Every structure is written in C-alpha cells, then in structure tokens.
C-alpha cells in the first residue's frame, strides 16, 4: 500500500515537474529514487523484526540488509541507464519497439551486472580464504 501510494505520488510529481519545467527537467525525475527510500527503510525494519524474534542483535543486521539492497540498486541503475539510452535511440522509429527494447536492455544489463559482481565477490572470497589458510600454516608450525 505504501509502495502503491509512493509510486503514484512519484508519477504525479514527475508529471507536474514536466508540465511546469519542461521535458528535460521532468525526464531527470524519471530516475528519482523515491521508491528506493521506502524500500530500504522497509527492508531494514523487516530484518530488525526478524532478528529480534530470533533473539539476535538486530539493528546492525537491519542496516546491512538495507546496504545489500542499495548495492543491488546501484547495479539496477546501470540497467536504468541502458533503458534510457535504448528508448531515446529507438522512440522515434517505433514506440512499441522502444518500450520492449528498453525493458529488455534494463533486464539484461541489470542481471549481467549482478552476475559479474557475484562472481567477482566469490573469487575475492576464495582468494582471501586461501591467504588465510596460507598464513595459518606457518603459525601452526
């Protein structure tokens, strides 16, 4: 319900800005992180509640859950950039193709960026574990 209200309000706000200040300024606000603010706060609250019920230290875990979500949003922003570029290039030839192509570009770029980040992090984790085990051997001798 909160997201519905915020999404509706953000769309109305963008329309108002566009009609008052023109398409260029209004276009900027198509990428306004209004919904992200609510999502991050909700994720933090849910995580805190979940950990409190499990009897764990909760505040820091809530912050970390919101931080992970914002890292995902940074990758999603790359997808949004692809969406805007594809739409602006194809809109004048075909609107249906512009909507489909831009949405596909958003999905492909976002998922690809997320996958690359996942792989990079797992390689880093393996390297740090190897370093840890290497340094542990001389100490044990």
């Amino acid at each position, binding site marked *: 319900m909160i997201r519905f209200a915020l*999404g509706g309000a*953000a769309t109305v706000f963008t329309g108002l800005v566009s009609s008052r200040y023109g398409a260029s300024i209004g276009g900027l606000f198509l990428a306004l992180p209004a919904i*992200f*603010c609510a999502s991050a706060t909700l994720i933090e609250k849910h995580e805190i509640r979940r950990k409190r019920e499990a009897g764990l230290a909760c505040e820091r875990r809530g912050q970390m859950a919101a931080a992970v979500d914002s890292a995902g949003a940074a990758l999603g922003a790359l997808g949004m950039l692809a969406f*805007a570029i594809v739409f602006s290039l194809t809109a004048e030839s075909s609107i249906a193709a512009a909507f489909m192509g831009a949405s596909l570009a958003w999905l492909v770029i976002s998922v690809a960026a997320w996958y690359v980040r996942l792989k990079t992090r797992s390689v880093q984790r393996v390297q740090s574990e190897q370093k840890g085990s290497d340094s542990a051997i001389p100490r044990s001798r």
Partner: protein
Amino acid sequence: MTEYVIRFLVGGAVVSAFAMLGDLLRPKSFAGLFGAAPSVALATLGIAVYQHGADYAALQTQAMIGGAIALAVYSVVVCHLLVRAKLRAAPATLLSLVVWLIVAFGVLTLAGGQTRSRSAFRRHLSRKAAGTNT
C-alpha cells in the same frame, strides 16, 4: 485533475508490480535490482507518448540518462553511509537525495552545455559554408 488521478493509479500499479516481484526474488542483492527498476519511467513515458507523442518521450529519456547516472552514485553513497557511517536507512536514503540532485543537475548542465556548444559549432560551420558558397 483526471489526468493526475490516472497518473497516480498507473504509477502506483506499475511500481507495486515491480516491488512485489522484488519481494519474491532472492538473494537480497538480486531483489535490489528491482528497487531501481524503471517503474515510474514506464508509467510516465506511456502517458507522455499518449499525450505528447514519441519525440517528447525521447527527449525525456535523454534527460533520464543523467538521472540514472545520479541514481548509481546515490545508491553507492547510501551503501557507504549504512556500512561505514552506520546511519539508519531512513536518514541515509533521505540525506543522499542531495547527492542525487547535485549529480543529476550537474550531468544535465554538462550535457546541455555540450549540446549548445555542438549546435553553435554546427551553426558556425553552416554560416561558414554559406559564406564560401556565395
């Protein structure tokens, strides 16, 4: 008035659909992708095409490029404020909106400046060509 009611309903429906999709998916970093989904953009562009035509929507998405760059910077700043400064989510996301505004308008100004200088250069070239032809 009717136009804004339609905007509210369409925007709310599209944003809710993306948010529900994000809630269903795991892990959290993958679900976060849907936090930056172009949900408001899809709703607004659909209405813009219907009301003003494709050219207007294309102009809006050109400016949206600046907004998307600002969103990427914003998300990184929020992440750092949560992890390093240990702020709660609400103040971190709200404070970072200043960063979004600065970057978005900075990129728009920069891109606008470049467009202006490019069009001035083109005008200069065409004037020069017209001068040599005459």
